[in-house]
């Protein structure tokens, strides 16, 4: 989980693209009436190289000898929420192909980008309530600045998958958490019997802008199975009897494609960015190329 220096530097150059929502400007209600003239001071943030020096609060600098940038309301920093699916099904795949590791890496990368850009980072490890209670805090942040990265990465590393996914509920619970809405990344395999649509709607309803990173391992896309089998769901324990032959495998592959197509259609309709990734893809490529292509990073 340790990112090497070179990668971290690369990450820093990326900035998160947030096209729509800024803090305070939520669709529909509470539209700010302020039109540029009386700009209210909202918050400080650490100075990062490249920031506009006119925004530097010299008084604070003088007092504290540390540069801080004044943020106006409309310039309030982006809240980035990294929601990682923590259900049992995520702990699938061997070694580098493990979905959870991959997801946490992605979450780490995204978090690193956000922290570098001065964004306000929150993260949550979505699990069933029972599981959550048994674990350490599954919500992280909000935190800001590169200094928080280490703690963030530690948080990520401490997460363990378990329990049954109920994405809708987890997302709903998160949306009700009273946080500042922002850009929410859902990193999940979307193996949720109840679906995910309702949860996404809730989040969006709260003003979140959503991106779904759909993580699957190669053997979930093209299972290396054959013969007469009883499939046991590691998450739910349900069994399914199949007699696998070439034909059925083809059907499965086609089903996966169709499923992802369905998700993509839904996401497009609801302004959710969608990126399907495979765990056998190098994660840098996911961040540096695939996400750029999907306009999630710039």
């Amino acid at each position, binding site marked *: 989980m340790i990112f090497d220096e070179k990668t971290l530097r690369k990450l820093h150059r990326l900035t998160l693209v947030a096209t729509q929502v800024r803090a305070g400007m939520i669709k529909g209600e509470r539209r700010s009436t302020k039109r540029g003239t009386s700009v209210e001071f909202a918050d400080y943030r650490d100075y990062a190289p490249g920031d506009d020096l006119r925004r530097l609060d010299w008084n604070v600098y003088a007092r504290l000898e540390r540069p801080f940038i004044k943020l106006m309301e409309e310039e309030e920093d982006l809240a980035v929420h990294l929601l990682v699916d923590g259900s049992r099904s995520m702990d699938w795949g061997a070694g580098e192909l493990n979905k959870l590791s991959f997801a946490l890496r992605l979450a780490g990368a995204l978090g690193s980008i956000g922290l570098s850009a001065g964004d306000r980072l929150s993260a949550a490890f979505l699990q069933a309530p029972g599981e959550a209670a048994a674990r350490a805090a599954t919500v992280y942040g909000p935190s800001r600045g590169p200094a928080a990265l280490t703690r963030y990465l530690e948080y990520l590393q401490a997460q363990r998958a378990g329990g049954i996914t109920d994405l809708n509920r987890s997302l709903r619970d998160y949306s009700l958490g009273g946080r500042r809405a922002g850009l929410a990344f859902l990193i999940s395999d979307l193996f949720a019997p109840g679906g995910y649509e309702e949860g996404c709607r809730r989040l969006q309803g709260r003003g979140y802008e959503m991106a779904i990173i759909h993580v699957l391992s190669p053997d*979930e896309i093209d299972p290396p199975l054959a013969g007469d089998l009883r499939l046991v769901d590691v998450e739910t324990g349900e069994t399914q009897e199949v007699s696998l032959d070439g034909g*059925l495998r083809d059907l499965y592959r086609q089903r996966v494609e169709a499923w992802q197509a369905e998700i993509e259609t839904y996401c497009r309709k609801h302004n959710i960015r969608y990126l399907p990734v495979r765990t056998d893809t190098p994660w840098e490529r996911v961040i540096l190329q695939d996400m750029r292509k999907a306009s999630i990073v710039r």
Partner: protein
Amino acid sequence: MNLLTPLSLLFGLLAVPIVVMYMLKLRRKEVEVSSSLLWQMVLRDRQANAPWQRLRRNLLLFLQLTILALVVVGLARPAIPTPSVAAGAVIVLIDGSASMNATDAAPTRFEAAVAAARRLVEAMTPDSQMTVIVAGTRPQVLASAESERAALGEALSSARADQGPADWQAAFALASGAAAGGTAGQDATIVIISDGGLPDEGLPPLPGEVRYVPVGETGENLAISALAVRAAGSGAELFARVDNYGGAAIPAILSFYADETLIRSQEIDVPPGESESIVLPGLPGGEAVYRASLEAAGGRDEPLDAFGLDDHAFTVYQPAGDRRVLLITAAEGGNIFLEQVLAAMPGVTPYRAVRGADGSVTIPEDPFDVYIFDGETPAELPEGDLLLINPGDNPLFAASGVFTDTGGIRVVDSPITRFAELADMQVRQAKRVDLPDWGAALVEAEGGVLLFAGETGGRRVAVMPFDLHDSDLPLLYAFPVLMANLMEYLAPAQAFEAGAGLQPGDPLVIRPDPAVREVAVAAPDQQVYSAAPGEQGVLFSDTGILGLYAVNYISAETQWAEYFAVNLFNPGESDIEPAAEVKVGRAAIAPGTEDRLGQREFWPWLALAGLIVLVIEWLVYHRRQTIGGLVERLARRGAER
């Protein structure tokens, strides 16, 4: 088809556990997956194609059951019985005797036998050779050590049955020769295809393995077993006998024809195994051809029995024609004994040579049938048959001295001495004759021959080397009988002797009148055989067909015909009951039992079929697309377009 090891079919019970296994839930391997969500989706999609799935599973079950069935049937060793023959030299003896013409095996027993022989040809291994012999009246080799099936087929097509008894001795000799001539070291197999009409005794053993293939089914047969016409009083009398060789009564109608005119028709019902004799008296005394025919009581269209060759018979009645006999006697007043007996003989017109004034006798130029020289023998003997009584020197034989020891008379049975009681004859003295090569002694005494006869120089000669006055012969009852026999011998009423009819294959010597230039014999099948008579006459041997033969004599000025009949008066052939076994040498050969017949097994074909089905099953199980999957892809592709 039959199964050689039918118990192996019990292996078919293995089908039960196979089916049970398919019906029970299959043991499935448990495999963990991250989520069964997608699998459930897939299987829901697939529900629409459930029939294909079931079909596929049933297809595998069906294929496996098929393989099991093929293996089980193969283990049971199914086989088609073929009269297969051991490889090597095969000799087929087909019975060609008259009884093989019976129609109880369609179309005839002989055809059935040929068909059996054809089956043997079919079952031949490529390195075998077959010899085909038809055992008829004169056995024939149709094919010799032949391995080409086509040639054997042609040979069999040319086989024909005869109408007479088979010469099994000759046929066996041919078979032995063929067996011995085969490839060294190979045991020959001899197959006799017959209705079993082989003689019980007397046949030599055959080398190699002998098999008997029987043909024929029934023994029911009604036959005319005798037909003859003889002179009776001033006319003639017909005698016929009908035998029932079968085990059931066969009511029939017996009809008699004289020169093809119906003279008598009566119902006849001979009990099985018995015979009935019929006599028709009061027939006219002239020449006629008589025919007797048996028909079914139901009418002409119905067959009487399965064997028709013995349902007809012919006999030719030829009363003795007038024979011109010239008597040249040395005695002054003639020989009253000879003259009287000749005058009283029917069918003989005697003439006496007249002595000239100088005492010499001039033999008339006209031909006579018989010249009787009594006591005197001319230097030049005339053409014609001769009776020499008390002859002098003559070119035909030598005589030296006389003998008086005339006791102990021995009479040799012959047509000349038949019915003549000569044993008590007394002869005072007789000339001692050197019996010539051509002569056969017929009456012998201790001192020498008293009567001999034979053929020489194209004529028949009979010699009594004693003076009739020196014996009591003219006073015996035997004298006219002997004289009649001598006349019959020397000048037969017919040019040939076929009074009682011939058996098929019997040869006939025809001694026509010297004036005859050509003899043409017409057989019942319209074949004509002609020849110019030689010194011994004409030897006619093509008497294989049953029926009436016409002998046409053609001379310079005229032609006339005589007739003879060939009949099958042969109980051995008329008894058509098929034999259960035949005797060859000392062994009795019974027809092959089932396991002695060859069996052509075809389990290798079943094994091959099973292998093919196994490959199909493997393909079905392992191929990447099932029928259902293929259909889906095609449908989807179609939808995309």
